[in-house]
């Protein structure tokens, strides 16, 4: 599906991405984790074609595959939520079809009560659901999400995760997302990639990540960010 070969990116004299080889298969769900500045967002932007790499190349199979990105900063356009959801739909679609697709997505993401509200007047979590909804109004083969639940509360986070899993399974979508939440990575992804200093420090199946994390950071993320009591509840 996607192959990155010798992809490098430098900014401000610092190398922020240096990927020798990375391959992601069709239909895979891959989580990118790593500390701030490790290159997660840059990697997603490079794959999306928003930022050109200084060296190397990104190969899509089949060629012409469109990568859709939900940026880290979610943005609601100054129009109704309904119109926001219709933005990404092709102009050739009839307005009734667009409306139906937008309303269906709104139902999935609990945005129905907000349909007439302005996109730029939503809360952070609502805006993230809206941003994701814009991508899900039509089936996508490749989704790139940069911290898709960064501003969402517990309920919204679970809703987004459920919707994403359902959409990916239904459409065979390949999913690559950045997150700081190791539990979320384990819930959503089948594979976890740990980035450190722009390099792939660990690439492992999600189930084995905690045990095999080569870097101390990976273990800290899994065991210390969300410590749990013996009954499985988060410690307070």
């Amino acid at each position: 599906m996607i192959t990155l070969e010798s992809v490098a990116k430098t900014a401000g004299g610092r190398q922020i991405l240096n990927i020798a080889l990375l391959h992601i298969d069709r239909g895979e769900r891959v989580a990118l984790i790593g500390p701030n500045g490790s290159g997660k967002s840059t990697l997603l932007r490079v794959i999306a074609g928003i930022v050109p790499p200084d060296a190397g190349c990104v190969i899509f199979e089949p060629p012409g595959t469109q990568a859709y990105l939900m940026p880290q900063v979610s943005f609601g356009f100054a129009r109704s939520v309904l119109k926001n959801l219709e933005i990404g739909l092709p102009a050739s679609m009839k307005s009734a079809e667009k409306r139906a697709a937008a309303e269906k997505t709104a139902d999935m993401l609990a945005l129905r009560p907000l349909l007439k509200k302005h996109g730029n007047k939503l809360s952070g979590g609502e805006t993230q659901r809206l941003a994701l909804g814009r991508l899900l109004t039509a089936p996508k083969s490749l989704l790139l999400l940069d911290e898709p639940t960064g501003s969402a509360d517990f309920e919204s986070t679970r809703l987004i995760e459920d919707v994403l899993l359902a959409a990916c399974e239904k459409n065979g979508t390949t999913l690559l997302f950045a997150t700081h939440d190791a539990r979320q990575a384990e819930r959503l992804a089948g594979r976890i990639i740990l980035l450190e200093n722009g390099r792939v420090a660990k690439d492992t199946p999600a189930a084995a990540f905690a045990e095999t994390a080569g870097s101390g950071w990976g273990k800290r993320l899994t065991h210390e960010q969300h410590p749990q009591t013996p009954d499985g509840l988060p410690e307070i």
Partner: protein
Amino acid sequence: MEQFKEAIRLVFSPDKELWQIIGVTLVMTFASTAISCALGIFPGIFIGSRRFRGKKLLMKILYTFMGLPPVVAGLVVFLLLSNRGPLGSLHLLFSVEAMVIAQCVLIVPIITGLTASAVALKYPVIAETSKGLRLSGWKQLLLLLSECRGALISVALTGFGRAISEVGAVNLVGGNIRFKTRVMTTSIMFETGMGNFELAIALGILLLTIAFAVNFIASTFRRETDDYA
């Protein structure tokens, strides 16, 4: 007090000359604002949304021209349009057209500079979102214009405010000719000099009323577009 009463009487019973002055003022102001917006907004969008070599220098030049003294602009246009000037053959000096040209020299940098600043604030997040949705370049531009419409209305209002209050440049290139190029600001200056304070005060009240009305309408429109759902 008597002068003020007489001014109020003049406001509510304007004579033919006063109507003519108001008419020339409105034509000159709206024409120069519209032309300046047409010439300045798209370069402003380009500058605000693109990275290119020399952008910082260009912005510094723009900011300098935003503060261009009106008499300097008037002098430049006067020299260009005078009989010995390169555009003398057009015979535009001391006409409303010359006044509009001088106004545009003053207003276009303001429109371009303010548009660039407004667009630069919103462009990064709009661009990343639009590109992430793989929207066409045309659709991205329309979205950017739509998102910046409130700011663009404010930019146009700033240009209008400059145009309607301008006196130095229009006096130089228009000549303050009665029944031809006399506008409200040059009339106020002229009538004050002549000691006709009643007419000067009446013109001042009308000028403020027009400026308030235009700002009120534009602000209402801006609020409506912002609340559009």
